[in-house]
């Protein structure tokens, strides 16, 4: 259980919270004493005893798989925090199971509900910056600032670590903007403070049609007041830079006409890109994604952004990054590597001089 998830969904006018499950009995006792919510210490008992329409899962990633499966088997619609599971195989199986049962699923990649990142998606779909050549996807923030940590986030085996916790966000934005990569290279999972997991993630991602992306993520950086996710996209007709607060777009003279934009610099702020939500706690996007899930369950809309199928694409990339990081440098500096003289390219009209 996540307290802020509970607060947001409990405040939703169309939702009634019938039960809360957490392994910490202490928190449950306080909750039931002061809010009257019905509580359970294990989800299996809860699923047996309480009749539900949907389940919201916010636990360490390691538990997602079995919990999601149990819920789907019971015929429940599921909202699960990101990442879906720790292997893309398991994520794909869950997506297939949900599909076969006709259940609504959603994963908490909240950036897809941030006004600025939605604006980027809309710009890409209209071809505003021409053919995309490269994307820089970044995330920085202050999570692990010393070597000792006692929560699950400091354990790779629990699904903790900068890759699954932090890098998953910019990776998912890449999946949304340009789809699944054909491969990855040069991945580094580096440590700043952590002993049992990584604090930094860097990699190059290769996409079809010569599109490339670079990923730069560090969760041990307190020069950022809170998590900051940034996307910079270069195209043949311009460039887009976006974070949660604003979108800056530079359009070349060759760019097509885009409504609301002019050639040269354009800046749009969150104040104009964001719609009000029924209840605000940490940011409109967190409320908006839950509201979206509720509406989808009400209307039985199966195929949508952030479904299990979409999340399993991101899980696959996280897996590829883990595998790639083991291989080290692709080109090593030893005696066997000899550079050949560079040969000048012959231009269309030119001669080699």
């Amino acid at each position, binding site marked *: 259980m996540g307290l802020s998830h509970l*607060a947001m969904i409990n*405040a939703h006018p169309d939702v009634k919270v019938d039960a809360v499950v957490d392994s910490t009995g202490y928190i449950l006792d306080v909750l039931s004493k*002061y809010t009257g919510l019905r509580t359970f210490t294990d989800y299996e008992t809860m699923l047996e005893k309480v009749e539900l329409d949907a389940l919201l899962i916010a636990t360490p990633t390691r538990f997602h798989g079995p919990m999601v499966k149990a819920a789907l088997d019971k015929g429940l619609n599921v909202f699960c925090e990101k990442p879906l599971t720790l292997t893309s195989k398991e994520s794909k199986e869950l997506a297939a199971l949900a599909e076969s049962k006709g259940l609504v699923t959603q994963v908490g990649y909240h950036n897809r509900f941030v006004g600025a990142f939605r604006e980027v998606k809309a710009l890409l779909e209209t071809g505003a910056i021409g053919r995309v050549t490269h994307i820089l996807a970044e995330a920085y923030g202050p999570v692990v600032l010393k070597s000792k940590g*006692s*929560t699950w986030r400091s354990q790779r085996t629990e699904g903790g670590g900068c890759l699954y916790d932090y890098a998953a966000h910019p990776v998912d934005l890449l999946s949304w903007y340009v789809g699944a990569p054909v491969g990855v290279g040069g991945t580094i999972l580096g440590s700043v403070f952590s002993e049992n997991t990584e604090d930094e993630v860097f990699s190059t991602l290769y996409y079809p049609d010569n599109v490339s992306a670079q990923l730069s993520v560090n969760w041990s950086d307190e020069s950022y007041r809170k998590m900051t996710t940034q996307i910079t996209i270069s195209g043949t007709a311009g460039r887009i830079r976006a974070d949660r*607060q*604003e979108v800056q777009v530079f359009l070349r003279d060759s760019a097509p006409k885009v409504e609301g934009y002019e050639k040269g610099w354009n800046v749009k702020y*969150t*104040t104009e890109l964001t719609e009000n939500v029924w*209840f605000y706690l940490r940011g409109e996007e967190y409320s908006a994604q839950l509201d979206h899930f509720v509406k989808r369950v009400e209307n039985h809309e199966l195929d949508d952004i952030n479904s299990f199928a979409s999340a399993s694409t991101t899980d696959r990339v996280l897996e590829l990054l883990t595998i790639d990081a083991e291989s080290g440098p692709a080109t090593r500096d030893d005696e066997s590597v000899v550079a050949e003289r560079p040969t000048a390219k012959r231009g269309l009209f030119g001669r080699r001089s």
Partner: protein
Amino acid sequence: MDRLLFGDNQFFGVNHMSEEKARAQAMRFQDLDAVMAVLDNAYDAGITTFMCTTHERIEKVADRVRSNPERYADFTFFPGMPYAHKYADAVTESGMLGAVRKFLPEEGIMNAMLRGGASLARKDIEGLITLLVDAEMTMFRDLKTPVIWLQNVVVDLLLGLGFDDAFTIFANHVKKRYNAEPGYITMNLPMLLGTLDRLGIENPIICSNINKIGFRMSGGIEGYREVLESHRFRAVAMSVFASGAIPAREAIEWISEQPNIEAIVFGASSKANIVSTKQLMDEFDPRQ
């Protein structure tokens, strides 16, 4: 309460519009002298109430004000607590109970440990809340704090959870121990008013975003308008300029036309902006 209150977001790299601007401000205001220079500008312009968080740098501001009582004879703090990031970081690092232990007040630590320990064991939230308030308030000892705020992240979390008792516990403690008025900051004004009405907390001081474009006004601008007209409470408007999205003149003119707004809190980094905001208020709002 003064009509104009001075806020502190600008000092801590909080800007709801631009991360670049936020970073530039964080760099500039790392120096306490830079913070004090802006506070002096506000004070000398007649804006003597500082609505602030309990960020560790505010402790230094409090020290300066305390050490110069003549210069700051009218200086008034409206502290807001808890400083949410401090706790969020601690919870991420040490878990919920670890975080609570970490913030036990340093003064009278044995007493606090007993009160805290017993409260933890009995699952007695009253003991914990009062303890945490006391921990946050130590930095303001001997200073004027006639209003003490509960920050929006906590107010809205409690509101969503339906943890209603906490609002009453906070109100009672702040009145009894500090002889101050409790204030609540929220992003969900209509919803919070419903809860406080139900709890019988009368005429509460509530601070929320109120601006012409409806930015971050959950429940919608119409819902806000309705409660401003129909509910008895003391409204403090923040984000009146919607982080700069509304031109200052237009923003102040609009807010001065809204019913029952007791005060406006604003942040500024330059003397020119402080003075011009004051002048706009004088022009559109001669009541002050």
